[in-house]
């Protein structure tokens, strides 16, 4: 891939009990076929045939950005999934339930 000086490089920042930064290394290889953007296991098990795969990234500024975003999204997804599995993140629903309980206690 050819890159110009105005290359669009996405980044992400997680703020919480821990902080983590996500950045893209444009010299690595990137594609739109990520590790976490495929069909869900449920529909594949039900016999779905994937006709909705993303197209290949073009070698343009915007095309390369698509591939970078896919890599970045994979890293964010895997980070958040690991935290959820490790029980470090409370489910949003749990938070609402906690709020409801607090409200009831106040009453």
């Amino acid at each position, binding site marked *: 891939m050819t890159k110009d000086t105005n290359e669009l490089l996405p980044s992400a920042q997680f703020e919480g009990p821990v902080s983590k930064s996500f950045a893209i290394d444009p010299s690595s290889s990137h594609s739109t076929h990520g590790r976490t953007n495929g069909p869900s296991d449920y*529909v594949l098990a039900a016999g779905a045939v994937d006709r*909705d795969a*993303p*197209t290949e990234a073009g070698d343009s500024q915007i095309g390369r950005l698509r591939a970078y975003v896919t890599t970045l999204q994979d890293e964010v997804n895997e980070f958040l999934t690991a935290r959820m599995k490790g029980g470090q993140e409370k489910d949003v629903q749990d938070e609402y339930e906690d709020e409801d309980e607090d409200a009831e206690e106040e009453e």
Partner: protein
Amino acid sequence: MPYYSLGIEGSANKLGVGVIEHPQEKLAAYNHARVLSNVRDTYVTPPGEGFLPRDTARHHRNWVVRLIRKALDESQIPPEKLDCICFTQGPGMGAPLQSVVIAARTVAQMWRLPLVGVNHCIGHIEMGREITGATNPVVLYVSGGNTQVIAYSRQRYRIFGETLDIAVGNCLDRFARTLRIPNDPSPGYNIEQLAKKGQHFVELPYTVKGMDLSMSGILEYVDGLANDLFNGKKNKQLVKPDGSKITVEDLCFSLQECIFAMLVEITERAMAHVGSKEVLIVGGVGCNERLQEMMGVMARDRNGNIYATDERFCIDNGIMIAHAGLLAYRTGKRTTLEESVCTQRFRTDEVFVSWRDD
């Protein structure tokens, strides 16, 4: 100079993009909008499965650029000639809506065009009025996610009656899942084809409640009959007077007759209330020929007319969003980036209809 807009729809499993042209003067019977392109792609799941938000959103994300390109190519309108980008802001499924909003925001910023968020139901109503020429009809809006009887009054589309639980299309689709019939081209279409072969009516609960109706109990009931049929369980309702067995086709026929009769009843009551002789059917279930036929019988009895569109405009599409959005744009509506958040709950009567003054 005419006005041009591009509309993107993706509140459920259809992704649609359309480009519309409005003449400069006010739209009228002699001065119609022109459909320049109206393309669509549907996320289809295996038989027996519904569409999950995550996979539907993925479908929309991965097709939206291809569809926008195709719509622009067909319309032969370059982006610089467009006046605005219109998108479905709600109601609908959160994840698919989000995919569409992001696509709309992106092209609006790339092409430096204003955004106009559109209520999906208003899109159906305005496109139905434009295509059929119905001026001030009672609207029956029937789809997979919505069931409403609507009439216009003082710059709002007011809801006269609606479902208290599931939508009519959802009821039909879920019964199709029980029967494990294909979802291609749509479960409702396949139920309709089976119903045409049905001969014997099986009595089902009839649940009109004032101006509203309820369909979850009917679905539960007919699902139970279908399961008894498949499992060979004895059930008096599954035996015809001549001793032969009720078929799957009979169940599809009975379900359609029962829920469509309920829809006709509340529509007729709304027509009597507002003194209208016109009824317009919009939404995906509006394509159903049996529903159109039953509604036509009622409308003719009242010396009225029924208006309906074909699948290009009944089923979710991008052109209706382009059309309703452009009507709003022409009366000054703009949606800023901060306001462009989509919403799963967005009632028809929340929209101020600035483009009508009758």
